[in-house]
């Protein structure tokens, strides 16, 4: 990765035991705060006072310290601050969290360290501090280059403000930037979407995420959509939605971006390693409320109770040991999200043999040697294809 030469001068990282015998670990840190909740958002996030945020950071640090036994087995290979809006964190606070983590467990020298940012929350000082703390990747939520669409989504910024943040990040030396985009917005045309893509690609970010809007129950967007509020009703039809997807692949492909996952595009070498670890099922540990972990084939989800968390009561909402069936299913439906797909093992061939033939015949699954992958058509109906890999019985 780039930027690995820059390290915070004061970081007392445990490098001594960075031996390769230790396994790679992804770390996710959830910051459940935002300036204002976006209309489509159903993630665990809400506006909060400075005081609550400070207490949350203290609790986070304690939770991280309480996970010290992980140091015996793992080295941190990727680190992702997600939210919410992690960039609401003052530079000092973010540095404290990183500092705590590196005191508790070894962090690879080339670790990918990402912070999700919202335009409008970034300042020069903050970006300096992030870089000093070791952050080397920013993921900036733009969603649309059209201010009308931004308002509809309930975003707190304009396209112009995004540009300022983006330029500032470049100016401060961030060489690995992602821009989040969202297609299939109400009133959006193919041309409108292409304009957003164009304006984004012009900036040459290393990575682009392009999702199509999914209206989740319980969001203001869902309510307005259901009530038929003006501006929310006229969603692009499915055909247009798929055309936008195809446009995205073609347009970004022409500009040197490779689609490596259903909705993610990157310049060579800039695929998000942290996200890939989810699809590849390497172990990861989540800190903060609602954060998910996968350790030794056990899935954990932290409690979502903020009040309890602030009182330093760390508990899981769920813990489930994965059976052989679960593991195989996950390997398939997560692995197939990657464009390179999954390399078939003997077990997979034995269990899914018939299904693989059926899906190939239906034109949704491609195969090259032992590698299977979603076709373009398969991506369009990925829910169906992936659900087919769920098994009826334990294996």
């Amino acid at each position, binding site marked *: 990765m780039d930027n690995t030469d820059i390290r915070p001068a004061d970081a007392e990282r445990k490098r001594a035991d960075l031996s390769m015998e230790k396994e790679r670990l992804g770390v996710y840190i959830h910051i459940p705060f935002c300036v204002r909740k976006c209309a489509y958002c159903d993630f665990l996030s809400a506006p909060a006072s400075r005081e609550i945020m400070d207490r949350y950071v203290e609790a986070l640090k304690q939770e991280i310290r309480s996970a010290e036994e992980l140091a015996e087995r793992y080295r941190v290979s990727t680190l992702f601050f997600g939210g919410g809006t992690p960039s609401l964190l003052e530079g000092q606070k973010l540095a404290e969290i990183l500092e705590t983590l590196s005191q508790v467990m070894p962090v690879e020298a080339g670790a990918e360290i990402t912070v999700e940012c919202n335009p409008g929350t970034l300042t020069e000082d903050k970006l300096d501090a992030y870089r000093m703390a070791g952050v080397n990747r920013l993921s900036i939520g733009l969603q649309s280059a059209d201010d009308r669409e931004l308002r509809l989504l309930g975003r707190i910024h304009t396209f112009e403000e995004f540009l300022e943040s983006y330029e500032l990040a470049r100016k401060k030396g961030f060489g690995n930037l992602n821009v989040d985009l969202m297609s299939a917005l109400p009133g959006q045309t193919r041309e409108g979407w292409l304009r957003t893509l164009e304006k984004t690609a012009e900036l040459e970010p290393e990575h682009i995420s392009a*999702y199509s809007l*999914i209206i989740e129950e319980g969001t203001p967007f869902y309510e307005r959509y259901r009530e038929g509020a003006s501006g929310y009703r006229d969603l692009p039809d499915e055909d247009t939605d798929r055309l936008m997807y195809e446009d995205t692949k073609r347009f970004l492909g022409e500009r040197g971006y490779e689609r490596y996952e259903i909705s993610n595009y990157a310049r060579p070498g800039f695929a998000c390693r942290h996200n890939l670890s989810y699809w590849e099922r390497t172990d990861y540990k989540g800190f903060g409320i*609602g954060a998910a972990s996968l350790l030794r084939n056990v899935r954990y989800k932290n409690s979502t109770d903020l009040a309890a968390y602030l009182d330093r009561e760390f508990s899981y909402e769920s813990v489930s040991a994965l059976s052989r069936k679960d593991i195989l299913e*996950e390997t398939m439906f997560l692995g197939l*999200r990657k464009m390179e797909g999954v390399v078939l093992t003997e077990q997979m061939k034995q269990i899914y043999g018939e299904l693989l033939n059926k899906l190939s015949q239906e034109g949704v699954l491609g195969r090259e040697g032992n590698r299977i992958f979603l076709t373009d058509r398969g991506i369009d109906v*990925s829910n169906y294809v992936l*659900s087919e890999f769920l098994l009826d019985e334990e294996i």
Partner: protein
Amino acid sequence: MTKTEQSRIRNFCIIAHIDHGKSTLADRIIEMTGLLTSREMQAQVLDNMDLERERGITIKAQAVRIVYKAKDGEEYIFNMIDTPGHVDFNYEVSRSLAACDGAVLVVDAAQGIEAQTLANVYLALDHDLDVIPVINKIDLPSAEPQRVIDEIEDVIGLEAQDAPQISAKTGLNVDQVLEAIVHKIPAPKGDPDAPLKALIFDSLYDSYKGVIVFFRIMDGTVRKGTPIRMMATGAEADVVEVGYFGAGQFIPCEELSAGMVGYLTASIKNVRDTHVGDTITDRSRPCDKALPGYKKVLPMVYCGMYPADGAKYPDLRDALEKLQLNDASLQFEPETSVALGFGFRCGFLGLLHLEIIQERLEREYNLDLVTTAPGVIYKVYKTNGEVIELTNPSNLPDPSEIEHMEEPVVNAEIMVTTEFIGPIMELCQERRGVYLGMEYMEETRALLKYELPLNEIIYDFFDALKSRSRGYASFDYELKGYVPSDLVKLDILVNKEEVDALSFIVHSSTAYERGRKMCEKLKEEIPRHLFEIPIQAAVGGKIIARETVKAVRKDVLAKCYGGDITRKKKLLEKQKEGKKRMRQIGNVEIPQKAFMSVLKLDDK
């Protein structure tokens, strides 16, 4: 208790519209007569099937015997006989009423008389029962007892000014009902020394005792050892046990005599030997004539029932056999369908009966069922002189072999308030009804008489009747016979493949309309696939309607955030689970409910 004098016996039933409080009043009466403590009371003691409790309706007739110490200081025996309240079971209702000497009519003080109640009240009056009106739910803020009293007097012509005004829920004035039963319902008559003559009003199969026969003795006496004969079926047996009905239990006794209600067991193996309405007599000293009103109940409606999981076929057979032990009107025989595999063609009294059996199979026997469109029995006269009784449309011979076909028709009587005569007449015309006449019962109420094809009323006629009369129409019918009819088989093709389980027989004049609606409905029911699916309706190979299920374009998951994949997996599981409830026809998955929902094509 030793011999009870007839004068201290009261045999009665309670008539009420659904939700007007029949079961609550029955509970209260049982409670207040003191045979049960409050603690022993399960809510709604009379309805002991789960299904009944949930639907709030009574499926099979039941009875309970209780002891009431009246204000005159005497103890009275009350036999309270519960009755079903649906046209499918009209015959059972009439036999239950025939076992009573009086009826308590419960009317909701806020709702007033409703149509369904009327049919049963008239049925009770036809059986010369004394009817005691009771105004219930007077504790409701919206109660208007005086209006309801006037209504009872105007519409039914019953004296109701001093009707007890009660709250069955709180128990208020229920004592007045008990006193009214004592004073206004006549004691039974009948000669205990005459030859035995008893009316069967229900029976129940018990795996230890065999069939338990519920009866009312009109004349004579029955005791252990009495050699009995059922006069209509000819079945003979020797009585093993007689007794009466405690609340929720059978209490054996020495003997039962004229005027009494009770049960007997006689090692009878099958409820088919103990038809409701049959007369029990003593074969060593038979009575001269059976009681009037007996009918052999025959299934009127047939449908195919298939296990969703083919491997459950033997389980379905076992379950049907068990249900049949208790339900002589249920018939079934094995059949196979290309679309659905192995199953049974089952015969029912009507659509409610069908639904009840279906629910009991699913609930009590844990079976997942696919049910095909119900049909009636058609008579197919072949050119070679053969006559087929057709219960499964798939068995219809080639048109070239058919000389003509006949379908069953019923004589229907519809009672309706005059303002709705127009809409109800229109409905009957639409359903190929033949107008027979109309009588005014009183100024605001008329009785419409129609001849209607049975296949036009088995699906949703009752619903349509209610919706077009705002609930104020009641309906009764009896089979009249068979008439020649221009019938055709309507076939449904899904993705060019004929789905035998969706075929049905219709009158040629309605084939186009039905076919079109079937296609529309199936279009809604069949989920989009990866490819386009044509749905066609055809008569004799000619396509008469078509719809298309478009191919699915997009089916994608939302962003998987922060590695929390459990939610996504749940979504995938839900999707996969949905497919399990489908039937594979060619390469199309048809949801099981599509086979049933296509029945509800009309109205709305």
